[in-house]
């Protein structure tokens, strides 16, 4: 079927809330049929949101051809680029890429794009005519939308009227033989220009400084600051403070942000789309859970999901709206990054239990719009006076804070008559309107208090004088007296358990002020939980919409009830009332739902326990294991031993990345681990410095372990890496990819299940540069013989008694490891050996033809290439080694580093910066670490960690690592571990590619066998010849221009030039692919036309790799990001798609890789080969999805699919 849409890009004022905040320079896509109406409405309503001014959402069915007539009414050339859909790149790319014809159009012009909707799902679109990250740009100012492709045969109607719908964020989708469902499009966007009612930049009434930048949903936002003003002015709720009622509809009415409406049990899909330009957000949806990959039933269940710019996911709540328990009420949906949440990035999913025909009103008199029941579901009961349905049975008062829940507060009130009518028959504290605990399950009860006490983070005296945390009541005295070290609260329960938790608020009424924060009357606290089943009205631990305020006042105890219906991961819990004010002080914890019938033991004593960050779990049927919980947290507001604040913000109350980081309330900064030799190569060594104060997760060789990874606070991405171990990405799925790294954002939870094959110290680290610098690392220690304070897993044979003493700190570096003394765990004698001689040395790296270069580059190269590189004959590229499954790879590494070739003789590395700069001179030692491969961590992991021996080499020394290729991992990231601070941004990284057995590697141009390279042809006796492109996406690079001037990116690369730029430490540095960058500013200086900057006709090809193929040829992209900054990137390849999980045929299809950070490894097998399904030739951009600031800074290149045979490039054999 052919569908046609006429779409116009228009400049328009976007009013984003009822307070009159607006973007005077907004740009949106709108259907031609709505264009005039939208303009007229905006003219008539200059300070009120207009429904048509929203991200354009259109629909089609699988198999449709969609013809878009695009008309440009903006004052610059623009277009529409679509993701996840097939099109001819020469006619419908919406860009001027490479040698393709320009498919953007000038102002006043039109173009037709033809799209082939091959697959169901979200096809995000935006403009590539103007990728400026400033307010001059297009995407940043609102120019985006989505084509939602439905299953073949679907139709869609307006949820209010039931009539057919041509466009709109919300629709009811129907199908002849599939259930109807509610479809909600949810567009996050950030950093858009915003003015207040007066036309000035909005101010924060707490700090009197400029408010946080725009973070919104569907071009709306509802910041706390506006609502706070109404309290301060005495308009509403005079006894409130602000944050605790930010989401309270009783006080303020409903927000301007989306309210996704449905009836209990309705099937629904939220099309979650990140249309913003910069931040990686965490989407969290209360009450509900969903499969992280909706097409794979074995994928992880999540209730919070990180999402980075220009990526998207389907959120399909399991059991429909209200989840398994059928909860009614308001379930808030928000970005969990607290500054974003406070800035207004939230909305509500409102689940009704009575029919809404348009005749009802909310408690404040606002009419409730009609909501058509889904045609294949029973109609909900009509509201009556006795049973009016949610929210009208709740005894609140408009203008005041939401009422407290019935029954739940100890000593509190009973139900009113209306509440009793709405309640379940056996209403009880924490479960009044829905019964989460089905059929009389086992019950456990916990008593927990929220307290304030100082928390000491390390031996150097870094501390939080106002630490706030949850503590079990029975441990209160021990924790307060110092007998028990405080740690984040973690309790363990078996699946199918009903949990009753009594929370007592013992916090001071006031969170005192200091260099970080203003005095805040944080007088309420709650216990909001993730994953488990509960009654959202009375047990959310929050204050949302027309629900109750389910928190405890000072001295008060509130009772909650939850049900753990099945084995889950660790479930996150935290305060939701003053979270932005005090969660970063430690107000977070977790429950772990273990397999049913499990028992838990103290790993030291063997006593049965029900809580703790490290326990031993025993089960009658499945293997016993160690259970280890790690919490990373940022915005840790610490003071040093002298009482000086560490990294305070510019002014108290600023959310501009205050403080430092921790793991389980501890940190071990590298600056304190320099030693007498001042050599960073031994910073992780326990021989030199003793063990870190951060968690050491203890086990015996051969033990099964499960790591529960969570993030407790507050705004930033982190990258968890474990050296020497790995896990299945989808834990339940035998077809899953294997990983050794995980990106995490606040509130996410992951479980990594693995075995520790050998004894030794395994480094775990949040391994972006600034994180590890500030101390977010520790060890997994596996013993080979018995130790007194670690029980043996109950189902394992006893270990041999200790025959030698445990190692202790000596203050001296350990001796050199001998990798030849042992085989990797899974290798066997006689394994074929593949050898590489690698040299690490310093050499300038030319990053592009404009003269941007790194004069201090440090690279790894094969010994035979060193001379050519040093003589300038070869411009180096990151080292890529390969091996086949079954190979024992022996890599001999030699260091040729010279002290005089490092740029900073004073030992402080000023750019790109990190927080808490300190003396930390460069190491002349170097090493090679790879993730995923199999090796003995004591000899071949590449780092000198814990009580492992030295695995680095100094100048002139050689070490020969032994790595066994035990699986076809594809991409393995590779980097130096001797000095993460001084080496990695200069280029000490590469990749190892683990190929199938019997594969040979060939030069793509000569087809001669090669040993290394980023671009090869793989040949295999039984598999098709395949082109393999290795893309190493890296940031934090220190470049100089052709005149030797240091380039300070991002500022020096922003188009148009800006006077000032607010930049976080982790955004500094240049970036690109494979030691190359095509910074757009260089091209712009030659020709200042934004839409032309990707053109090879005008500028020649970019310096970044041009990967070439012929239509239909098999192509695999090996993508990794071994270095080094915390800002997560999105990768997107135009016109192509691949399976999210390359090993799993059930996996979802996508054209992007989200939240790329240090250590991540991806394998992208292009579906349909080069040119995708229809084998269209042309130039396809590969690039970052971050408009701010990756694309301007050169993170893009071209994948060229030739239509005709080229003399330099032989075709692959069929």
């Amino acid at each position, binding site marked *: 079927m052919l569908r046609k849409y006429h779409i116009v890009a228009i400049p328009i004022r976007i009013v984003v809330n009822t307070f009159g905040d607006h973007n005077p320079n907004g740009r949106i896509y709108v259907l031609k049929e709505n264009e005039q109406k939208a303009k007229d409405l905006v003219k008539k309503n200059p300070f009120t949101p207009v429904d048509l001014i929203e991200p354009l959402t259109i629909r089609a069915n699988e198999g449709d051809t969609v013809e878009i007539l695009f008309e440009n009414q903006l004052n610059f050339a623009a277009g529409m680029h679509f993701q996840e859909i097939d099109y001819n790149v020469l006619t419908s790319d919406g860009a001027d890429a490479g040698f393709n014809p320009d498919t953007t159009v000038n102002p006043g012009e039109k173009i037709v794009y033809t799209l082939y909707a091959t697959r169901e799902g979200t096809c995000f679109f935006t403009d590539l005519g103007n990728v400026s990250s400033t307010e001059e740009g297009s995407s940043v100012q609102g120019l985006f939308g989505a084509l939602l492709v439905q299953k073949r045969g679907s139709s869609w109607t307006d949820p209010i009227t039931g009539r057919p719908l041509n466009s709109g964020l919300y629709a009811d989708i129907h199908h002849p033989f599939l259930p109807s469902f509610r479809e909600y499009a949810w567009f996050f966007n950030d950093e858009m220009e915003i003015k207040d009612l007066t036309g000035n930049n909005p101010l924060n009434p707490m700090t009197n400084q400029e408010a946080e930048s725009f973070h919104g949903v569907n071009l709306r936002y509802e910041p706390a600051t506006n609502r706070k003003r109404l309290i301060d002015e005495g308009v509403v709720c005079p006894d409130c403070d602000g944050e605790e009622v930010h989401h309270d509809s009783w006080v303020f009415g409903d927000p301007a942000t989306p309210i996704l409406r449905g009836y209990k049990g309705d099937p629904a899909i939220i099309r979650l789309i990140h249309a913003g330009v910069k931040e990686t957000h965490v989407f969290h949806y209360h009450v509900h859970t969903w499969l992280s990959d909706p097409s794979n039933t074995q994928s992880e269940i999540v209730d919070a999901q990180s999402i980075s710019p220009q990526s998207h996911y389907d959120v399909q709540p399991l059991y429909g709206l209200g989840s398994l328990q059928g909860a009614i009420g308001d379930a808030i949906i928000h970005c969990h990054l607290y500054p974003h949440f406070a800035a207004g990035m939230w909305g509500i999913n409102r689940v009704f239990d009575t029919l809404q025909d348009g005749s009802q009103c909310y408690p404040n008199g606002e009419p409730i719009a009609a909501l058509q029941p889904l045609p294949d579901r029973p109609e909900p009961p009509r509201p009556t006076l006795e049973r009016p349905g949610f929210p009208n049975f709740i005894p609140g008062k408009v203008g005041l804070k939401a009422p407290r829940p019935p029954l739940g507060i100890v000593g509190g009130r009973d139900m009113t008559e209306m509440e009793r009518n709405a309640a379940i028959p056996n209403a009880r504290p924490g479960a009044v309107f829905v019964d989460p605990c*089905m*059929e009389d*399950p*086992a019950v*456990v009860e916990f008593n927990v208090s929220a307290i304030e006490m100082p928390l000491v983070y390390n031996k150097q005296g870094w501390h939080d004088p106002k630490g706030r945390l949850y503590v079990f009541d029975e441990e209160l005295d021990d924790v307060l007296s110092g007998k028990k070290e405080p740690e984040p609260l973690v309790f363990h329960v*078996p699946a*199918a*358990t009903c949990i009753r938790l009594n929370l007592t608020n013992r916090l001071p009424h006031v969170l005192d002020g200091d260099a970080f924060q203003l005095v805040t009357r944080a007088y309420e606290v709650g216990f909001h939980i993730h994953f488990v089943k509960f009654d959202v009205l009375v047990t959310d631990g929050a204050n949302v919409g027309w629900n109750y305020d389910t928190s405890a006042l000072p001295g008060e105890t509130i009772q909650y009830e939850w049900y753990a*219906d*099945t084995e889950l991961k660790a479930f996150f819990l935290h305060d939701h009332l003053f979270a932005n004010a005090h969660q970063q002080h430690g107000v977070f914890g977790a429950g772990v739902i273990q397999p*049913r*019938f499990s*028992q838990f033991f103290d790993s030291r004593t063997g006593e049965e326990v029900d809580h703790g960050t490290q326990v031993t779990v025993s089960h*009658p*049927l499945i293997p016993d294991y160690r259970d280890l919980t790690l919490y990373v947290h940022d915005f840790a507001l610490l003071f040093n031993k002298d009482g000086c604040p560490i990294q305070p913000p510019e002014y108290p109350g600023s959310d501009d990345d205050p403080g430092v980081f921790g793991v389980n309330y501890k940190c071990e900064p590298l600056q304190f681990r320099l030693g007498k030799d001042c050599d960073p190569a031994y910073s992780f060594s326990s021989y030199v410095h003793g063990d870190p104060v951060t968690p050491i997760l203890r086990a015996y060789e051969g033990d099964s372990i499960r790591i529960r990874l969570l993030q407790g606070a507050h705004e930033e991405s982190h990258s968890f890496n474990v050296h020497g171990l790995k896990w299945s990405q989808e834990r339940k799925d035998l077809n899953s990819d294997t990983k050794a790294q995980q990106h995490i954002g606040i509130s996410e939870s992951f479980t990594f299940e693995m075995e520790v094959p050998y004894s030794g110290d395994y480094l775990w680290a949040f391994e972006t540069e600034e994180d590890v610098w500030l101390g977010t690392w520790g060890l997994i220690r596996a013993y080979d013989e018995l130790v007194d304070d670690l029980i043996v897993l109950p189902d394992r044979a006893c270990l041999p008694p200790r025959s030698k003493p445990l190692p202790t700190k000596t203050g001296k570096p350990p001796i050199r490891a001998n990798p030849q003394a042992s085989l990797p765990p899974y290798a066997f004698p006689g394994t074929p050996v593949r050898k590489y001689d690698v040299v690490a040395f310093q050499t300038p790296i030319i990053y592009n033809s404009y003269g941007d270069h790194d004069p201090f580059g440090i690279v790894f190269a094969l010994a035979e290439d060193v001379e050519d590189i040093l003589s300038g004959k070869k411009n180096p590229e990151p080292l890529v080694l390969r091996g086949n499954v079954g190979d024992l790879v022996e890599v001999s590494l030699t260091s040729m580093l010279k002290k005089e070739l490092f740029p900073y003789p004073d030992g402080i590395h000023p750019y790109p910066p990190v927080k808490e700069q300190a003396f930390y001179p460069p190491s002349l030692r170097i090493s090679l670490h790879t993730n995923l491969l199999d090796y003995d961590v004591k000899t071949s992991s590449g780092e000198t960690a814990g009580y492992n021996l030295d695995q680095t080499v100094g100048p002139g020394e050689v070490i020969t690592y032994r790595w066994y290729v035990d699986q076809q991992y594809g991409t393995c990231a590779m980097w130096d571990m001797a000095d993460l601070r001084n080496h990695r941004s200069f280029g000490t990284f590469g990749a190892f590619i683990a190929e199938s057995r019997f594969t040979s590697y060939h030069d793509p141009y000569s087809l001669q066998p090669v040993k290394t390279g980023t671009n090869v042809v793989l040949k295999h006796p039984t598999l098709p010849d395949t082109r393999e492109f290795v893309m190493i996406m890296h940031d934090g690079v220190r470049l100089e221009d052709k005149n030797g001037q240091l380039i300070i990116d991002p500022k020096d690369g922003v188009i148009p030039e800006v006077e000032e730029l607010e930049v976080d430490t982790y955004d500094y540095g240049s970036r690109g692919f494979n030691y190359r960058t095509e910074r757009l500013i260089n091209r712009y200086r030659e020709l200042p036309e934004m839409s032309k900057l990707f053109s090879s006709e005008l500028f020649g090809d970019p310096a970044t790799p041009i990967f070439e193929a012929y239509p239909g040829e098999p192509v695999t992209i090996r993508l990794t990001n071994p270095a080094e900054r915390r800002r997560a990137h999105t990768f997107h390849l135009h016109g192509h798609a691949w399976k999210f999980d390359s090993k799993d045929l059930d996996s979802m299809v996508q054209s992007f890789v989200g939240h790329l950070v240090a250590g991540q490894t991806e394998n992208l097998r292009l579906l349909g080969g080069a040119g995708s399904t229809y084998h269209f030739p042309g130039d396809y951009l590969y690039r970052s999805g971050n408009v701010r600031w990756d694309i301007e800074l050169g993170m893009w290149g071209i994948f060229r699919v030739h239509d005709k045979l080229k003399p330099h490039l032989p075709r692959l054999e069929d």
Partner: protein
Amino acid sequence: MAHRSNNVNAAHDNALIDHFFLGIGHKVLVLSPSYPFVFIGEILGVADDIVEIFVETTHFPQLENRSWFIHIDNIEVFYIEREGAPKIPKLNDMC
């Protein structure tokens, strides 16, 4: 060839049916690829190629203490507890 193959399949199925038939009254553990994946209980009977088990324990307590009818083709792993042989572990909530 095809005929022989059928015989083997039939013999395999018959042997399984006989084995379960002889296990009537005994405790059994069954793993199945289908929801709810695990069953522990007493074999009550065998009708054609379907085994009836009074399930004391499965993955979800809400599905316990009732008879389940399981087709033998849907049994991937099983263990019938007999005298003198290892016992199926006792599984108790909140043990």
